[in-house]
Every structure is written in structure tokens, then in C-alpha cells.
């Protein structure tokens, strides 16, 4: 399955771009994708990331589907 990963703020700086496409096996969860990202970009591990799937906060156990857009959400700080 092809997953588009969007990166923001500190995660964008670590990855070096705003968007990546990652291939994961069918049935992969947010946690599986997270582990792939952590392997490629170990510095992401320290960020206390949350994840969103298709622009909604998602639990780690959530199953992904081909074409999903997953966002890396470092600790937010608007206002």
C-alpha cells in the first residue's frame, strides 16, 4: 500500500521535506508506519509525535488503507 506522509515543523526539518510516499504491507497500522519512519529517521523518535490519518487524530492501532494521508504531528503550540 502506498501511504503519503506529511511532515510539519520539527518533523519536517528532520525529514528534510514536507511529503514522502512510503510503501507498507497490506493491513499495516499507524504503529507499523511509525516504526518504518523511525527506522529511516531515528531523530523522529525523540519528538513525542502524534499521528493523524486523513486529517483526523488517529490511534496507533488504526489500520491504514492504500492512498491514506498520514501526518506526523509534533507537540503543537499555536496561539
Amino acid at each position, binding site marked *: 500500500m502506498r501511504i503519503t506522509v*506529511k511532515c*510539519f*515543523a*520539527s518533523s*519536517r526539518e528532520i525529514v528534510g521535506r514536507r511529503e514522502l510516499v512510503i510503501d507498507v504491507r497490506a493491513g499495516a497500522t499507524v504503529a507499523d508506519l511509525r516504526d518504518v519512519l523511525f527506522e529511516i529517521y531515528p531523530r523522529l523518535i525523540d519528538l*513525542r509525535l502524534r499521528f*493523524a490519518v486523513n*486529517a*483526523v*487524530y488517529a490511534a496507533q492501532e488504526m489500520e491504514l488503507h492504500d492512498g491514506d494521508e498520514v*501526518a506526523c*504531528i*509534533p*507537540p*503543537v*503550540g*499555536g*496561539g
Partner: protein
Amino acid sequence: MGNGRYEITPDPLAVDPIVAQLADPAMGAVVTFVGVVRCETGGREVRYLEYEAYPEMAEQVLKQIADEVRGRWPEIRDVAIVHRVGRLEIGETAVVIALSAAHRAQLFDALHYTIDRVKEIAPIWKKEVWTDGEEWRSEQ
């Protein structure tokens, strides 16, 4: 429900048009919060701030916050939350929140709740750029 506005924009913010959007003959009170870039944080001199957002998601989250506010305080009628992104200089407005109701009771509590929730869950990030470094900041 009337004239909600939930927006992420790179453009400078003006308070009056946002308040004007909440106009309604039955409304007797509007409260606003205006968040402004200040020149100092924790003893360090700030040169400017860089805000970034995930706009498609942030606008949905701002609307969700407005729904939460109206759920907790049914007397609140309209909610506007507009947040700017990009490079902001000292004194520029980063966020405007406006709430309207028939009467002022509850508006202040609701406003406090709204800004707290924006800082807590909206996918918006702030980088402080000091004279001697920079850092992404979060109160979480």
C-alpha cells in the same frame, strides 16, 4: 447556528472584520482574544516567530473546538477562530478568537476554554527565532 469562521491564513489579521461577521440583532455581547507576538520569552530576545499549520486539519479542529464550546455553553451563539501562519514580526497578530452571545455571562469562561483548546489540539506550530538561536515551542 450562525456565522462561524475557522480559518488558517498567511494574511495579516484585522479584528474588526472578524467581529463584524458575528453581527446579529439578538446578540448583546462579543468577547475577543487577540494573540500578539511579543519581544521577549523566558528572558530571551525574540526576533520574530514562524508559524506553520496543517491547514486542512487545523480548520476542522478549530470547528470541532467551536462545537465543544457551544456544547458546554449553549448560550454561546457564534465562534470565530482565525490563526495566521508564516513569519510574524513583533507586535503582529497571530490569532483572533471572537465569541458572541445574547448576554455576557459565560463568555469569558468560554473564551478561556477556547484559547486553551487551540493551544492543546490544533495542528499549529510556532518557532521562536531569538537573537542567539531558535526552537519549536509547545506548552505540552
